[in-house]
Every structure is written in structure tokens, then in C-alpha cells.
């Protein structure tokens, strides 16, 4: 038999998941000699044997790869070898030479084996909150550099004890080269803190007692810090709201297990699976009729964000409490990044937290909890972060060899890197109009470039908005790296993220959200676009442009927006009267602001034009008295959706179209005027809310269908923050499918701005295809 030596380079999620020991075991079982090692961000295997042996070995790798691993590609280089070079199979030290598309895995929730050990009084890991193995525990949040070796992680501060070292060096052990492994003898320590460490034998148990007594505790976790309090009564949550200055924004909660969750929310089988998945995201679920948590948790909404414990610490925290759930909200000042540094936690949260549960392991990469919401019974992300990042998307259909860095828009920002057919969206960065968040973004960019081993950038991509900090940062970076800057229209990027996720070549997209700078200098947000894989697109209409008196003020105080929309249809004095009699306390300055806003509209003074659907939904919400102003992003339209669910869905409001510059537009002034008239005539606000949402959804679908006809395509996608709305998504889907069109929505990406950077990468990729 001829003997061969094969050199295999394995790309994918192959480091930090027990890949090398699996290879070791396979080779041993098959009695093949050679070695395996981490190389840069990929894994190299050298093996010798007959041609058939090697072929079988490769098949076996695919079949028996560790559960947390993913193989993108195995590059095989095989040649004849007469004298065998190896007489054993070994795991050898990492080398640093190669760069591929491989990446370390996301953080993983604690596995069942580790959890059992934590609860087993006879185990070395009993009651130890940082217990981890090759199948579980932190990854992305603790790694500084590839290859994924302990010395390249924050665990390097914690030399292994004898016990852990035995597990770590035994290829047959679950903790073989588990870089995050540790135990009470050698690992990080958790402690309760307030003006100094509080001496206690059991800081975690004491923490849950303090929570149950109504205290607010800052708990440092894996990728960040949570503010935690009880949920069974109002007082603790009210205190937290007061201290944070977050009057109405819903808080997510953590509940010990799925049985407890079913006491206050309902879920489908798919929702349950996502809730329990290894990423353990927050899932937004409908409140059950028996919902008995404090109404302060997610006030005036029909749903509630819920997650399950994902670390040993969380499980231990729930061990001694009778509370059905704890508030778990990111510990940050509004708009600023979540706090991760012990000193910062204890100083910046001084006026917010009563106690701190801290530990002495550094968080290297901040990573917020991910949030998922189902629409049409399918999940999509509100925020894709912990548990998913840095997993890439397959962009091999885009035929570019360029490395692209895209910086996203401004709020809910992520950035993305496109390299060798893979697109890596970053963790949630947040509101980059805040200085601290922008600084976090700069750090995170450096870091992800390092982890993906991207050492050159060919194109930088930014939004078209001239004032976004990310646009300015992109300009700076393009100077620094001496690369070309590509600016992409906001909604084009939204649609491109959807199209690239579904690996499509062309589609019609309904793009509906809050604000996006349009090619024409107007503010878009309710458009129908056609786009394809040349990187070009065309706008085919949507909602009419409406004045935004005072610009962003109309977002904060949507009654101003409503006034702008009605100004185009109502008599000025009639409008003045309506505003002064029914809505004057919706304006920050009352009646005099009504007059000034009208004057502003008359003079067209500091009044931008927008086709934003978000602004129309906000306006309907305030006109119906469902909300007054906006305390948090999306508040008015979220509450509108909740109220609309109570309607019978029988009332119809006919959409009025107009044609302008060959575009079909939905006249939103007529729609809003109808809303006002219906309300005045005594129709229930839930019916009107429902009908107005339906009108917009159906009318946009009609325009999309006509556009699709013109291009002879059958595929219509929906994107933008409006499509978090379950009802609107449902109506659009029904309308499109009834007419024989294929409806596409986000699956592994966000309808909102979190996926804009990925779309920017796609467009830059298409534009620069060879």
C-alpha cells in the first residue's frame, strides 16, 4: 500500500471547542500518526496513512466534530511519502502563522455536566460560579488574541491548580485544553461589595437575600454587568426606575427555568427552544393572562423580555429565592456602554446600586445580552450580541477579495468586517452619539480586526448621514488606512443585510423605520426599494414626505410630528384649536409651543421632510392618546401595537395614493386626518389603532407588489425597525402571499439598525466584485 502524508487546514469555529482532543481521539482510534495544532485562527492537522485511511479520517472529522464546533472548509494537501515521519499522534504547541476565516466561538451557557458538578457537594466544582469546560463558558468575552490559548485570555491571571491541570492536560477529559476552566482553588473569586468587601461565607446566597429584601444589586457577569432587583412587587422596580431615570422603558428579566417562565408568559415550542438554546438570549414573549409580576416591569406592553440563567452564578443566585424572576438590565447610564470594570462599577453606579456582586476576572470584550422577538412564528434579532458574536455569515456569493470594514449608522450600532467570503458583525455597540460609546466602538474594531486576523482594510463603509459620528469616524479611518470611503444609503443597507442573509441576487424591499438619510437630503423611513447584487438600488415610493418641525424634537415629542402631518390637510385655525384643546399638555411648553410650532410650519423653519413610517406610527399613537412623548426608542409605536391587539380588526381605513415623479405614495396626512375624525366620532382607539396599522401595511405591500411586477421578481422582503411589529409583519406577509409573492424577513439578523453594517458590507462587496 502506498503511504501518504496529508496536511489539513480546518477553517471555522475550531478553536475553544475541544477540536484538537477530538482529532487526537479520532487519530488514536484509527491508529494514524501525525499531529494537530492551532495555527493563527485555524487548525492544522498532519496525518499519514494510506489514501483510504486519510479519506476516512476526513469523513470522520466531519461526522464526529465537537458539538460546539463548525467547519467552514477543510483544505487538503496530500502527497506520497515513502518513509513515515511520525510514529505517534500528538497535540503540539500553537503556532501563529496562518490567517483564515476561522474564528473563536461565541460565549456559551453553562452545560449540563458542569451544572451537575456545581450542585454536587462532593465535586471539586461544587458551588463554584465560574465552572466551565470545552462545551461551555465564556469565549469571545475573555479572549485577547488568537490562537485561543489560555495565555491569550483573561484566564492567564489564574494559573491552574493541580486538580485543574490534570483535567486540562488529559486529552480524554472534557476539560482538556478548556482555556476557561478553573475551580475554587485556582480561579476567580466572587465577592459582595459595598464600601469594601463584605465578609460573608456565601456572597451569592447573601446577594439573593438582599435582592429579595428589595435592594438593587449590580452583578458583574460574563460580558458585562447587570442591575438586578426583584419582580414580585413594585417598590424595587420603581426605585430602580427612579434612580436610573428610566421612567417607562421595559426591563428584561431572568427566571430560573422554563416551568417558572410559564407562570407569567406564554411561548410556542420554537420560542421555548430559542429560550433554552446555548446562546440563552432574551426572548420577548407575550404576557400570559395570569401575569403576576409587577406591572412596572414592562408597563403598558403586552409582552416581556425573558431569559434563562446562563452562568453558574445565575443558577446559584436562584437557588435560595422564591422570586419567580429577577430584573436583569444592563448596568449603564442611558446611551453609554455597559460598565465592565470593577472600579467603574462601584463608582459610576454609586447612586443606583445598593450592593455589588463582583469578581476579579477582567471582561475583555463587553458583550450585551442578545434579544430575539418572533414575528410570523419565526425568530429574528432585536439585538444580536452575546452568544452569537463573532460568528460570521456566509458571504461567498459576493465575489470580492477585498477586506471591508463597515461602521453602521448611529443608534443600535454594530460594525462589520467582510473578509474572504465571511461577514463578521460585531457585538452590540450602542448609541454612538455618546462619546464613551464611540470610544468603545474604536476599541471593539481593533479587537475584532485582531481576532479575525485582518491586517489590511481595502474599503471603509459609512452611512450617508453627514453628522453621524460613525460617518466622521469612517472618514478618519479612511485617511488613516489610506483607503477609499464608500457611503451607503441607510435603507439600501437595511435591505442589503436581508438580501445577503438570504443569499439572494435581487429583491424588492419594504424598508420602514425611524430615520435614515436619503439620497435627496430628505429623511427616509417608509420606502419601497428594488435592489440587486450590483450594489445599486432604486426608490419606488412609499409614504409621502411630511414636515418635522424642529427636526429631532418631533421624534422626542411626536405630537409635533402629528401636527406637521395634519398641517398639510387641516385648516390652520382648526389645527391650532385641536392641539390647544386636546393635546396642549403633550407639548413641553404647552399652548405657546403650539403657536410656535405652527409658525415654524408656516415659515418652513428648521423643518426637515421625512417619509418615516416610525414617525407616522408615533403620531397615530399620540393622537389616540396612547402615549404622550417618547421615553425610550420605539415607545409610542410599541404601545400602539399593544393597544391595537385589543381591536377586532374589522374597521377599514381606505388608503389614499398619489403619484409623484413616477412614484406611488401613500398620503399619510389623509390617513391621520381619518384617525382624528374616527376618534372624534367615538370609535374605540384599539379599533382605530388596528385599522391604521393595517392600512399602512397593506398599502406598502401593494406598492411593493407593483414594483415586483415591474422587475419581474417574486421576492419581497421587509426590513427596518417597524418590522419588529408582529401585526404589521403579519399583514404584509398575508397580503404578499395571497397575491403569490414570496415574503422574506430577517432570521439571523436584525430588522433594526443592528444589521445595517452587514448590509453596508454587502453593498461595498457587490460594488467591488471582480
Amino acid at each position, binding site marked *: 500500500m502506498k503511504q501518504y502524508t496529508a496536511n489539513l487546514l480546518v477553517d471555522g469555529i475550531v478553536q475553544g471547542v475541544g477540536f484538537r482532543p477530538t482529532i487526537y481521539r479520532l487519530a488514536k482510534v484509527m491508529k494514524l500518526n501525525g499531529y494537530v495544532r492551532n495555527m493563527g485562527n485555524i487548525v492544522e492537522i498532519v496525518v499519514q496513512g494510506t489514501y483510504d485511511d486519510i479519506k476516512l479520517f476526513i469523513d470522520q472529522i466531519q461526522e464526529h466534530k465537537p458539538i460546539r464546533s463548525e467547519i467552514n472548509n477543510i483544505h487538503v494537501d496530500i502527497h506520497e511519502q515513502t518513509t513515515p515521519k511520525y510514529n505517534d499522534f500528538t497535540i503540539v504547541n500553537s503556532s501563529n502563522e496562518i490567517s483564515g476565516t476561522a474564528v473563536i466561538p461565541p460565549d456559551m451557557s453553562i452545560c449540563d455536566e458542569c451544572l451537575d458538578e456545581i450542585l454536587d457537594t462532593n465535586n471539586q466544582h461544587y458551588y463554584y460560579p465560574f465552572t466551565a469546560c470545552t462545551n461551555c463558558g465564556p469565549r469571545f468575552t475573555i479572549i485577547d488574541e488568537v490562537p485561543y490559548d489560555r495565555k491569550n485570555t483573561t484566564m492567564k491571571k489564574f494559573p491552574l491548580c493541580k486538580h485543574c491541570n490534570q483535567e486540562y492536560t488529559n486529552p480524554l477529559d472534557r476539560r482538556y485544553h478548556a482555556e476557561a476552566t478553573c475551580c475554587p482553588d485556582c480561579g476567580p473569586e466572587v465577592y459582595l461589595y459595598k464600601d469594601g468587601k463584605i465578609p460573608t461565607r456565601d456572597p451569592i446566597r447573601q446577594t439573593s437575600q438582599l435582592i429579595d429584601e428589595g435592594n438593587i444589586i449590580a452583578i458583574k457577569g460574563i460580558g458585562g454587568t447587570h442591575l438586578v432587583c426583584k419582580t414580585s412587587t413594585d417598590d424595587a422596580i420603581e426605585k430602580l426606575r427612579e434612580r436610573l*431615570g428610566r421612567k417607562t422603558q421595559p426591563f428584561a428579566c431572568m427566571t430560573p427555568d422554563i416551568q417558572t417562565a410559564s407562570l407569567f408568559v406564554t411561548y410556542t415550542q420554537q420560542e421555548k427552544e430559542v429560550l433554552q438554546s446555548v446562546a440563552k438570549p432574551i426572548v420577548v414573549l407575550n404576557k400570559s393572562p395570569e401575569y403576576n409580576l409587577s406591572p412596572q416591569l414592562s408597563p403598558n406592553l403586552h409582552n416581556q423580555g425573558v431569559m434563562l440563567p446562563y452562568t453558574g452564578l445565575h443558577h446559584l443566585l436562584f437557588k435560595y429565592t422564591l422570586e419567580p424572576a429577577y430584573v436583569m438590565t444592563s448596568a449603564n*447610564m*442611558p*446611551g*453609554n456602554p455597559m460598565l465592565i470594570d470593577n472600579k467603574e462599577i462601584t463608582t459610576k453606579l454609586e447612586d443606583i446600586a445598593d450592593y455589588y456582586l463582583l469578581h476579579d476576572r477582567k471582561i475583555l470584550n463587553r458583550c450585551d445580552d442578545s434579544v430575539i422577538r418572533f414575528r410570523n412564528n419565526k425568530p429574528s434579532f432585536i439585538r444580536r450580541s452575546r452568544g452569537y458574536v463573532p460568528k460570521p455569515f456566509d458571504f461567498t456569493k459576493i465575489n470580492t477579495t477585498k477586506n471591508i470594514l463597515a461602521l453602521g*449608522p*448611529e*443608534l*443600535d450600532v454594530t460594525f462589520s468586517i467582510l473578509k474572504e467570503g465571511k461577514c463578521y458583525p460585531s457585538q452590540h455597540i450602542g448609541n454612538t*452619539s*455618546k*462619546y*464613551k460609546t*464611540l470610544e468603545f466602538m474604536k476599541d471593539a474594531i481593533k479587537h475584532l480586526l485582531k481576532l479575525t486576523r485582518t491586517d489590511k482594510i481595502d474599503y471603509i463603509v459609512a452611512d450617508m*448621514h*453627514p*453628522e*453621524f*459620528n460613525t460617518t*466622521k469616524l469612517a472618514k478618519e479611518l479612511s485617511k488613516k488606512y489610506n483607503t477609499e470611503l464608500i457611503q451607503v444609503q441607510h435603507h439600501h443597507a437595511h435591505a442589503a443585510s436581508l438580501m445577503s442573509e438570504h443569499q439572494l441576487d435581487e429583491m424588492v424591499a419594504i424598508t420602514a*423605520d*425611524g*430615520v435614515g*438619510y436619503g*439620497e*435627496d*437630503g430628505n*429623511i427616509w423611513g417608509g420606502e419601497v426599494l428594488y435592489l440587486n447584487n450590483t450594489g445599486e438600488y432604486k426608490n419606488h415610493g412609499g409614504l409621502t414626505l411630511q414636515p*418635522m*418641525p*424642529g*427636526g*429631532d*424634537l*418631533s*421624534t*422626542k415629542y411626536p405630537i409635533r410630528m402629528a401636527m406637521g402631518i395634519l398641517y398639510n390637510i387641516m385648516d390652520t385655525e382648526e389645527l391650532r384649536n385641536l392641539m390647544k384643546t386636546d393635546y396642549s399638555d403633550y407639548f*413641553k*411648553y404647552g399652548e*405657546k*409651543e403650539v*403657536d*410656535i*410650532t405652527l*409658525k*415654524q410650519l408656516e*415659515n418652513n*423653519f*428648521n423643518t*426637515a421632510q*421625512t417619509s418615516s413610517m*416610525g414617525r407616522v406610527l408615533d403620531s397615530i399613537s399620540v393622537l389616540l392618546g396612547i402615549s404622550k412623548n417618547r421615553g425610550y*426608542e420605539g415607545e409610542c409605536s410599541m404601545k400602539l401595537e399593544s393597544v391595537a391587539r385589543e381591536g377586532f380588526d374589522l374597521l377599514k381605513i381606505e388608503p389614499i395614493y398619489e403619484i409623484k415623479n413616477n412614484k406611488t405614495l401613500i398620503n399619510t396626512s389623509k390617513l391621520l386626518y381619518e384617525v382624528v375624525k374616527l376618534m372624534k366620532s367615538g370609535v374605540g382607539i384599539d379599533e382605530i389603532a388596528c385599522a391604521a396599522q393595517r392600512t399602512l401595511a397593506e398599502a406598502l405591500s401593494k406598492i411593493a407588489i407593483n414594483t415586483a411586477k415591474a422587475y419581474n421578481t417574486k421576492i419581497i422582503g421587509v426590513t427596518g*425597525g417597524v418590522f419588529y411589529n408582529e401585526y404589521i409583519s403579519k399583514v404584509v406577509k398575508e397580503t404578499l402571499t395571497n397575491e403569490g409573492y414570496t415574503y422574506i424577513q430577517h432570521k439571523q439578523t436584525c430588522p433594526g*439598525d443592528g444589521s445595517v453594517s452587514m448590509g453596508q458590507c454587502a453593498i461595498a462587496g457587490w460594488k467591488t466584485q471582480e
Partner: protein
Amino acid sequence: MAYNDDKINMVHGAGGEVMQGMISDIILNNVSKTSVNGGIGLEALDDSATIPIDDEHVIVTTIDSHTVQPLFFPGGDIGRISAAGTLNDISVMGVKPLSLNNAMVISEGFERSDLEKIVKSMDETCQEVGAAIITGDTKVIDSDKLDGMIIATAGIGVGKKENIVSDAGLKVGNKVIITGSVGDHGMAIMSKREGFGYETELKSDVAPVWGMVEAAQKVGTITAMKDPTRGGIANALNEMANKANVGMRLDEERIPIKPEVEAVSDMLGIDPFEVANEGKIVMGVEAENAEDVLQAIQKTKYGKDAQIIGEVTDKKHVIMETIIGGERLIEPPIADPVPRVC
């Protein structure tokens, strides 16, 4: 807001980044000699230019044309502005203004009595600092070519080299002083012009600032200063920080603003930091005598509300700690604000 690059647009005169771009593209690129005897010249884009005349002394000179609408507004008129504007550009170089040259372009049919009021107003303003109007020019043109009048004034001062304060002299650790409330002029003009009806509450701050400069220089060292006119303090602070390659950290709570200015800008969605002032100075001063400088300014006629609003850092950004907590980047305005909140 989509500009045609081939045409000069209103935003090119708005005092923001677009105007800066036009100045460097079209003006700086086409002027061959831009300074005299190594003095501060055109390239510096400072408030005024300097011409060294011997080892010790420099001439300071500047020019400004004024096109305010309406000509008479609460707190002042075009006469006072066209005097104060130029006198102030000389003053913020650290030098006493001596004289004005005054060119007026008047539209046919202009009221004689209005013209007289305007000239008197110019004169009164000059008297406040002891400056003379020493030469001038008048033109009258068709009323369909011009609505009202345009006044161009050039100013001259002579001072010692060592007293000259450029825009670019900020040092890390310096304190930043503003000599009074922000946004008064811009909001008053806007409100009057658009008919928002706040004439009794909102008054322009137009005034000569020399008195404050003189008082400050007696007790301390000013490292850099500007009068924050078009583009407001947002523009002036960024310009100073950029030219010195430093940043600033400001405290929102200490930035003086009149409640009525705040209310009206709040109702219009206008950032008071981005609108013009016509009687204020922002300056950097050495930290050790910042308190003395502040007190000296507060004793002057127009400096009662002066405040130390922050300090100079090495961070390259102008960052403001906001009242509600958190930090905001103060950016130079581009032109009109574009909605960005999602």
C-alpha cells in the same frame, strides 16, 4: 440639503464646515501671498491679521461685511453690529481697536432717518472703546438688487507683539472662560425675523468686548480667544481646539444661558450652542490665574455672567458633561441640523 457643488449656496455662508471648505478650496488656493513680514495671515483664518512693523509692534487689521435681516432688532441694529463685529475681531487678538473704515451699500429708497439712526448707533458703539471712524465709502444701488443695506467695516489696532493672542494657543490644562450667556443674538434675530413673537424677552447681546479683554489681560495670561459669532460656541470651541490639536472638557451646568433663550431654542429644535453671539468671548487662560481673570471680567460692563466652563485636555474632542449625566460630543455645525434620532 443636497448641495450643487458648482454653485455657491446659502450654507456656504452659514459659518459651518461647508463654509470652511469653500474658504480653503476657492480662496486660499487662489491667493498667492497671504501674509506680511511673517505676521498672522490669511491661512491662519484667525479673527484678524497682524503685520509686524518693528521688533516690538504689530498692526492688527480685519474686515467684515454685515447683512443682518431685519436691520433693527431687539438689542441692536445693523450699525451696532457692523461696528462691534469688527472692533471685536481686533479686540480678541488682544489689542485695542483704534479705528474703523466704513463702506455702506444702500438700496435706493432707503429711509434717510433710518440711515441716520444706523450711523449714530455705529458711532456710539465706537465711543464705548474709544475708536474712531476715519474713512469710508457709500454706494447706492437699485432696490431690486438689494433689500436694505450692506455695511462693510475694516478695523485697525496697533499693539505689542507679546500681547497678541491667536486662536491656536490653547495648552492642555488651561481653563476655558466664556464671558456671558450663549445664543442671545442668534435667537433674538431668528425670533424677530420669523415672527415667533418673543421680542420682549429675547435681546441681542451685540456689544464691543474690548473692555473685557483689557480687564483680563491686566490680571492673567490669555492663551487663545475668539468671539463666537456664526456657528456659535460649538464652532468657536472646536476651531480653537483643532488649531491647537487639543480637546476640551466642558460642564454643561456652568455654561450660562438665559432661560428664555433655552425655552425658545427648545421649542424650535435649535441648539443654542450653534447660534451666533455678538458680544461674547471664549478664551483659554492659564489655570493658576483663571479665577482672577474671571473676577476681573465679571466686574466689566458686559462680563457679569462670565463663567469658567471647562478645561483643555489632550483628548482631541470637545466633550461636554451633560446635566442629566453622560457626555456629549460638541461638534462644529455643518449647516442646518439634520434629524438623526431614530
